[in-house]
């Protein structure tokens, strides 16, 4: 060949030159692929890359080689980090705080946790082993390992939250039964700066879930109950000073004489310098998260914790009045809503994304039970998506209904007796809902909801599609559907840069993993 570049030698018609820089990756020699092996890296709201965690060959008598392969948002391989760790390591979470990457591992063999941090050039900054795990920590880790998305930010579980400019916050549980909580913040080099623990003398069970670092605050939701098995929950909104760990706000979501409230989301709005709480309200005699809710509420508080505004929207009143005609049948069919996400746009409008579900008797399950089988007599049904839009004054201004094919989900034996809200949370943890994630741009002007419509009960044999719903500052709602092709043994769906989703196709026979960025028309 004459030229300096390594170019296409033959069969040009079969090879596309542009693929040299295409938004795809193909990796050979992958003997198995789990969803959790790959996770997106966020910088602020946006996906800026991916990390793939794989186990390689043996490094020495005690250790295996593990690879952290890093890709940018366009799937261009950036670099690889090889680490030597004992067998049984899992990556719980990867996170980026603007100046450092942190990889949070669980060492199953030694029952320890470990954090490693790297700067943006992937030079190692620090490493920390956390060995003093409580019984509660271990329980949570075990539950997390069985979750559909161990790296997901559920209410429970071991998490590592990025705090821009400060480092990373790690949560933990105290006692053998996770009676209390701990929080610790580490800088980029993993020096601990503060640690707080719940009051050991407290009679109540307390779990604090930090949801985000916003402005100068660490925001979270505190769930308190009298005992481990208690179904009576009390919710508080918690704000900590990110620099010191000092609790600045720990305020119960007030229950009025006519209803009681549960909390779905607690955020800080820097434009108005107000805290915003969104959740559902229940009849006074009902049990939040057990009985069916009456509607949802939006409460705004000043930084001092004073209520600025509070509004309730009943499913059968305000919401029903704005509900499109096509949605009414499902509302009347006893479906209840599960709130997946609450976001606020740069223009002040707020969006609540919910999905309908209900529990029904399972004929086959009942028959199996009668024959002595251990299956559930109930099953979950997942129906349509809804977006509730509130104007900047928090007035419900629009309800959008997005019909989907109803799909079925298996629920654990006995779960049918739990009550709809708690069951919704279980189904969420099991990955039963179609809703997958919500993507937003850094400017908070465009939001995309991505869902996956396929029958979880039928599993891999089911036919499905990826659905997308776009909304934001333009005021328009757009939708898109991506049909999935046959071929791969497994496919997994991941968040991607704004306007895209990332799909991986794993081919077991070829031991090949394909990654591709799909642009959504929303």
């Amino acid at each position, binding site marked *: 060949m004459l030229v*300096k570049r390594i170019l296409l030698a033959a069969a040009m018609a079969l090879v596309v030159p542009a693929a040299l820089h295409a938004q795809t990756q193909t990796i050979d020699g992958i003997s198995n692929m789990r969803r959790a092996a790959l996770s997106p890296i966020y*910088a602020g709201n946006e996906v800026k890359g991916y990390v793939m965690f794989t186990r390689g060959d*043996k490094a020495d008598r005690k250790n295996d080689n593990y690879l952290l392969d890093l890709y940018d*948002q366009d799937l261009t391989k950036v670099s690889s980090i090889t680490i030597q760790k004992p067998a049984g390591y899992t990556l719980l979470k990867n996170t980026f705080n603007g100046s450092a990457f942190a990889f949070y591992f669980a060492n199953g063999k030694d029952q320890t946790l470990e954090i490693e941090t790297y700067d943006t050039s992937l030079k190692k900054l620090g490493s920390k082993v956390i060995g003093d795990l409580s019984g509660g920590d271990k329980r949570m880790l075990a539950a997390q390992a069985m979750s559909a998305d161990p790296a997901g930010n559920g209410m429970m579980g071991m998490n590592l939250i990025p705090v821009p400019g400060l480092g990373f916050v790690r949560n933990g549980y105290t006692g053998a039964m996770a009676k209390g909580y701990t929080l610790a913040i580490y800088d980029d080099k993993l020096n601990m700066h503060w640690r707080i623990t719940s009051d050991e003398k407290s009679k109540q069970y307390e779990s604090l879930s930090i949801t985000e670092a916003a402005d100068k605050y660490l925001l979270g939701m505190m769930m308190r109950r009298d005992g481990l098995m208690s179904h009576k929950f009390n919710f508080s909104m918690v704000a900590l000073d990110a620099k010191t760990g000092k609790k600045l706000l720990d305020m119960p979501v007030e229950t009025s004489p006519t209803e009681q409230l549960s909390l779905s989301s607690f955020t800080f709005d820097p434009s108005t310098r107000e805290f915003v709480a969104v959740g559902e309200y229940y009849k006074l005699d009902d049990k939040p998260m057990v009985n069916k809710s009456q509607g949802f509420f939006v409460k705004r508080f000043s930084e001092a914790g004073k209520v600025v505004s509070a509004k309730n929207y009943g499913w059968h009143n305000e919401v029903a009045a704005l509900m499109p005609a096509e949605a009414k049948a499902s509302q009347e069919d006893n479906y209840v809503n599960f709130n997946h996400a609450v976001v606020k746009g740069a223009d002040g409008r707020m969006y609540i994304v919910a999905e309908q579900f209900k529990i029904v008797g399972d004929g086959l399950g009942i028959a199996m039970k009668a024959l002595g089988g251990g299956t559930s007599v109930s099953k979950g049904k997942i129906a349509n998506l809804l977006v509730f839009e509130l104007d900047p004054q928090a007035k419900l201004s629009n309800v959008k209904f997005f019909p989907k094919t109803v799909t079925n989900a298996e629920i654990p034996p006995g779960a049918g007796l739990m009550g709809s809200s708690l069951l919704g949370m279980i189904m969420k943890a099991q990955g039963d809902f179609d809703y997958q994630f919500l993507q937003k741009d850094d400017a908070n002007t465009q939001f995309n909801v991505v869902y996956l419509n396929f029958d979880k009960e039928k599993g891999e044999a089911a036919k499905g599609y990826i659905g997308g719903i776009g909304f934001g500052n333009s005021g328009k709602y757009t939708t898109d559907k991506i049909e999935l092709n046959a071929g791969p043994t497994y*496919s*997994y769906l991941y968040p991607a840069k704004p306007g895209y989703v990332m799909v991986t196709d794993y081919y077991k026979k070829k031991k090949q993993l394909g990654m591709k960025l799909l642009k959504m028309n929303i």
Partner: protein
Amino acid sequence: MRLLFLLAVLASVLATPALAQQAPYLPFYSADTVRVHEMAVAHRAAVQKYLVTPKSVSGEYRDHYKRIAQEAADDVYNTVRYSALVDPVLNPYVQRVFGQIRQANPQLAAVQLVLSRNPEPNAHAVGNSIVMLNIGLLSRLENESQLAYVLCHELAHIQCAHMERGLHAQLTRIHSKELRKEFKRIVADEYNISSKLKELALGLSLNSNFHHRQYEKQADSLGYALLKRTSFDTRQAYRALQLLDKIDQPLSAEPLALGQYFGCANFPYPLPEAPAKPKSIFTVAAPTKTVLETTDTLKSHPDCAKRMRYLSELAQGQIADGPTAPTPEFARIVALSRLEAVQSWFDYDCYDHALYEALQLLHDEPQNAYLRSVVTLSLYELREHLLKHDFYEVVGNVSKHHPDNFNQLLTTLTAWKADDYKGLVACFAQNAPVAPAADEYAQAAAYAAAKLAAEPRATALQQQYQAQYRDGRFAKLLFPKPAASGKKSIR
């Protein structure tokens, strides 16, 4: 009367070439693939005949050799079958130059030249009988002598049996006792097998690249000797290498005036501000080169600067160091090659490249109806792929290896939405109206524009195209038969 008739015939004969010269060139297309199939079969047979499995080697070596020989033969078949350009203008031209070289060098074996529609600027030799010249390289040369040197260089590879020697050298190394022993040792060693095997493979690759660089030097040297025996200007050999050194540079480095092409009063350009280039959060630096690493250690070819120095020594300083104005005949060859290259990008579904190259050429030829058709058709196909959600297959990523203005186009293509395309195509037609043409390209583009605008006449235009060009270049692309689709679940 008879005299008048003869005069009339003579006048028409004389007038025909003049008319042909004035008629706009359209890329070559023939639905009849018999000729290229026969060529492909013959070339495959020639490679099979050439790469005879050696006898006095191990069984593994033989099997490996057979596999490579079969792959090489299949590759040649595919390349010729799907990319050979057997047009009536460019192919005869390059064959004439090739014939002159062979005539001046009668000692050369019977080698055939295949002009390929591959738009990448490259050429290569296969076995002992084929030189492949890409249209993408022809379009970047300045004169016939540079073309002659390129062909001489490839003939030199054949004369030196570089393909076979390279293959034997590599297989001898791979199947050597030392390497097998090393391989067994690594596999038996329980730990870090993967990284040790990678190191071994890297060593093999570096060794192979070293030999390839030696072959290139030989081909430069012998190629120059072959050129000297011809009547071509030997000083242009140096200039050819100089052009190759800058081959990655675009025709024009100026930013593309996308807003001017694709925005108008009815449909304001959808991106009034240029979309920001995607920024990476990673700041990983390129690996630092060791003292031992030269600039071309990891390349299969020596750096052009090295080759130019070497050639300058060979030519004893008799070199053309700088651009030369092409003759009108060669300028036309270059111009037509560029159009063929644009069409090739399009045919290979590289609509980003097709659009980019067409826009670059439109800058100097804004009324070129063919280029305008390619722009419209590229936009149509880009939108189709957006709707089919396989946009990633036809549009590449921004890369530091691309020219800035190509990255500008890629960033823009990524930002345009499916709904924008109707306005983009409408404005493009409105901003520089051209006289309607009746050729296949214009008709296909007219259909694409009408379909994008959801105009009822799209159906009539489709019927018109299909009636006139039943097996036309765009028939399958624009009007595919619906395929049965299978689906799979995702988790």
